[in-house]
């Protein structure tokens, strides 16, 4: 029973994909969209069943399908594990997924390849589910690469534009770098305790008394690199902003809510491995903090509405990694969920604006749309408050938890994180003001066509906004449902530790204050003084550096891409040719010899006989000397 349900849950989106690939064009755009959406909704419904089930009896559900890959010392089964974590993840993957499908029906309606778009979205959901419910690392890897593929397909969805294709390629390859790390991690784990299955692995670690910590740390580090690739952490984050080339729903679903959180999922899954490697955890924490700050600084000056959101995503993910670094997995998960709500909402909101402005993404060409786009504005406002950590919105609770943990473990990182969140508040409201307030700065034509988006777009916005507002409820500082729910997963006792004293309250105050300061600065800058960000040419000084993202892309390009291509050209033009001429050379030499030899064949009898006699004499004399 469970098996069939689980399979249905998994395969429903896949069937949707197949249906849309083969019949999508025939049945027309809306129909294909509806089909795509319904399949995801179905999965969502099934997830809810499982969720209710697991809430009653804490029993995780194990499903083994068949033996997949056979390795000398262990074998990998095709199996699923439905426990608290995976079901929780399924909830928002399928939930937000179905909302975004719904949204896309209207958003993508002008695109002639809409059925393909839905096919890819369904495929993505399918792979994401695989990633989440896989019972071992290799099934996770299927999903891991699969979502990478889908993000490739969707980023490059408008494949006539080679720049988009470049972005897609970049995303795929950077992910692959991470994947190699993940693979190596899998190898190490597989050879240490011959299994890749989560549950058996957990017991194996728990039972064994002499663990090779150094190897485990190496494994943890390798896995973390994988996570960096997927979850866009330093140094592998540059693909995410470029990924905004894809349609906005894609950015909302894949590059904000679901796929990018896969890294956090994986680390939380393997918390028992990471707990064994404290130094790796430190690295994770540091990387997370730094990423959050760097991304936030870049976001300060971006003018493309989606770029800002992209960098804010990177920064938020950084915060999550910070939490993971301190072993506060449930807090990271908490932030993942709340972030999924408000970030999805923000992206969809921006999408609705872009939609209204016929694809205009530059904030300098926007402004004042709040008059016509009321709903969009409200939802956007709520989510912005949430992300800026203003109580009582969801973001406040999750972010505050993270900051608190940081404070308790490492002041320096706490400072960095707080700075990041202050900047977050600033740039979010900068975005808000520039987009919705003041006068419209775009063309007349655009102005005339300004309109509120249709219900299909606004409905998801509203839902998400509500969630973003109240989402914090699942883990209130006083008695957290989430921590209780996730408790079975974690070996050591969850971080209920910091009972609420003065420090905690001051910290909260500081955090909130930071948010408010950020908002105020933005308000002063863009409402009071009515500034508009300068045109690209006029940007100077440090702002220019920030505007160009610290030139990281350029540096990577120079170091890796260029050098590889130079090497490739060198190999092609010199090494290859010289190698082959080496082989040809032998032939040439013999040919030359033959050419010279022909001269010996003079045709004169005298000479022939002379050589004859010479040979005769030499042989005879040699024989004499020999005897």
């Amino acid at each position, binding site marked *: 029973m469970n098996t069939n349900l689980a399979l249905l849950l998994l395969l429903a989106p896949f069937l949707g994909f197949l249906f849309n690939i083969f019949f999508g064009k025939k049945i027309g755009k809306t129909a294909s969209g509806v089909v795509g959406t319904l399949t995801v909704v179905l999965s969502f419904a099934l997830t809810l069943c499982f969720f209710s089930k697991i809430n009653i009896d804490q029993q995780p559900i194990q499903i083994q399908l068949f033996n997949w890959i056979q390795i000398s010392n262990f074998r990998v089964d095709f199996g699923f594990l439905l426990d608290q974590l995976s079901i929780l993840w399924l909830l928002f993957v399928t939930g937000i997924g179905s909302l975004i499908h719904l949204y896309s029906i209207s958003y993508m309606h002008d695109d002639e390849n809409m059925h393909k778009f839905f096919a890819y979205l369904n495929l993505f959901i399918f792979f994401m589910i695989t990633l989440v419910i896989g019972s071992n690392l290799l099934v996770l890897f299927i999903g891991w690469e699969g979502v990478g593929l889908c993000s490739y397909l969707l980023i490059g969805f408008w494949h006539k534009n080679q720049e988009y294709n470049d972005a897609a390629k970049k995303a795929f390859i950077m992910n692959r770098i991470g994947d190699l790390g993940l693979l190596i991690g899998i190898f190490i784990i597989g050879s240490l305790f011959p299994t890749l299955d989560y549950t058996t692995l957990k017991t194996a670690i728990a039972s064994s008394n002499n663990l090779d910590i150094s190897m485990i740390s190496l494994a943890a580090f390798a896995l973390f690199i994988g996570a960096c690739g997927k979850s866009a952490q330093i140094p592998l984050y540059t693909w995410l902003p470029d990924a905004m080339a894809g349609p906005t729903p894609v950015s909302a679903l894949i590059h904000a809510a679901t796929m990018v959180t896969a890294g956090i999922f994986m680390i939380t899954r393997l918390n028992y491995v990471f707990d064994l490697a404290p130094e790796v955890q430190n690295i994770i924490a540091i990387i997370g903090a730094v990423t959050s700050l760097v991304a936030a600084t870049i976001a300060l000056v971006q003018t493309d509405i989606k770029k800002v959101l992209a960098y804010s995503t990177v920064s938020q993910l950084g915060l999550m990694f910070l939490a993971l670094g301190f072993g506060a997995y449930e807090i990271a998960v908490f932030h993942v969920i709340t972030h999924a709500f408000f970030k999805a909402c923000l992206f969809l909101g921006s999408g609705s604006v872009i939609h209204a402005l016929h694809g205009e993404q530059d904030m300098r060409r926007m402004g004042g749309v709040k008059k016509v786009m009321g709903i969009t504005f409200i939802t956007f406002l709520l989510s912005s408050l949430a992300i800026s950590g203003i109580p009582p919105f969801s973001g406040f609770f999750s972010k505050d938890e993270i900051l608190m943990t940081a404070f308790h473990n490492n002041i320096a990182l706490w400072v960095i994180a707080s700075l990041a969140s202050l900047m977050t508040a600033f740039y979010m409201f900068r975005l808000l003001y520039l987009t919705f307030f003041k006068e419209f700065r775009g063309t007349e034509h655009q102005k005339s066509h300004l309109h509120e988006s249709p219900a299909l777009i606004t409905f998801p916005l509203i839902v998400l906004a509500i969630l973003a507002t109240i989402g914090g409820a699942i883990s209130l500082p006083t008695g957290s449902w989430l921590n209780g729910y996730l408790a079975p997963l974690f070996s050591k006792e969850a971080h209920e530790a910091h009972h609420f004293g003065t420090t905690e309250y001051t910290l909260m105050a500081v955090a909130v204050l930071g948010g408010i300061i950020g908002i105020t600065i933005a308000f002063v800058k863009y409402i009071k003084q009515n500034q508009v960000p300068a045109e690209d040419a006029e940007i100077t000084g440090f702002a220019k550096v920030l505007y160009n993202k610290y030139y990281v892309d350029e540096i990577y390009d120079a170091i890796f891409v260029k050098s590889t291509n130079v090497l490739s050209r060198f190999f092609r033009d010199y090494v290859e040719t010289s190698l082959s001429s080496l082989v040809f050379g032998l032939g040439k030499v013999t040919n030359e010899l033959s050419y010279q030899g022909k001269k010996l*064949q003079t*045709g*004169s*009898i*005298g000479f022939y*006989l*002379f050589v004859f*006699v010479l040979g005769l004499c030499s042989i005879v004399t040699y024989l004499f000397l020999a005897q």
Partner: protein
Amino acid sequence: MTNILNEIGIENYIFLSVILFCIGVFGVLYRRNAIIVFMSIEIMLNAVNLLFVAFSTYHQDAQGQVFVFFSMAVAAAEVAVGLAILVSIFRNLGSIDINNLKNLKG
């Protein structure tokens, strides 16, 4: 006949015929006129014949002398063929200098 080889010694016969043979060889090597080259070859063969006879007396055995007849017959046949070839060459080239025969080479 108490054979004279005892006085002279077989070696000298060998030396003599070797010398004759070498003369023949050098003739073949250095002369350009085909006829003379033939003659030189004949000298070689006859040097050998001489040695045959010497050996046959040395061994008191007739086979050697019989062999000489074979070789003479063969030599005659060879020369006949050779002269025939030479004639046709003379018809075509108007000369029998073997230096003119260098069309086949390389």
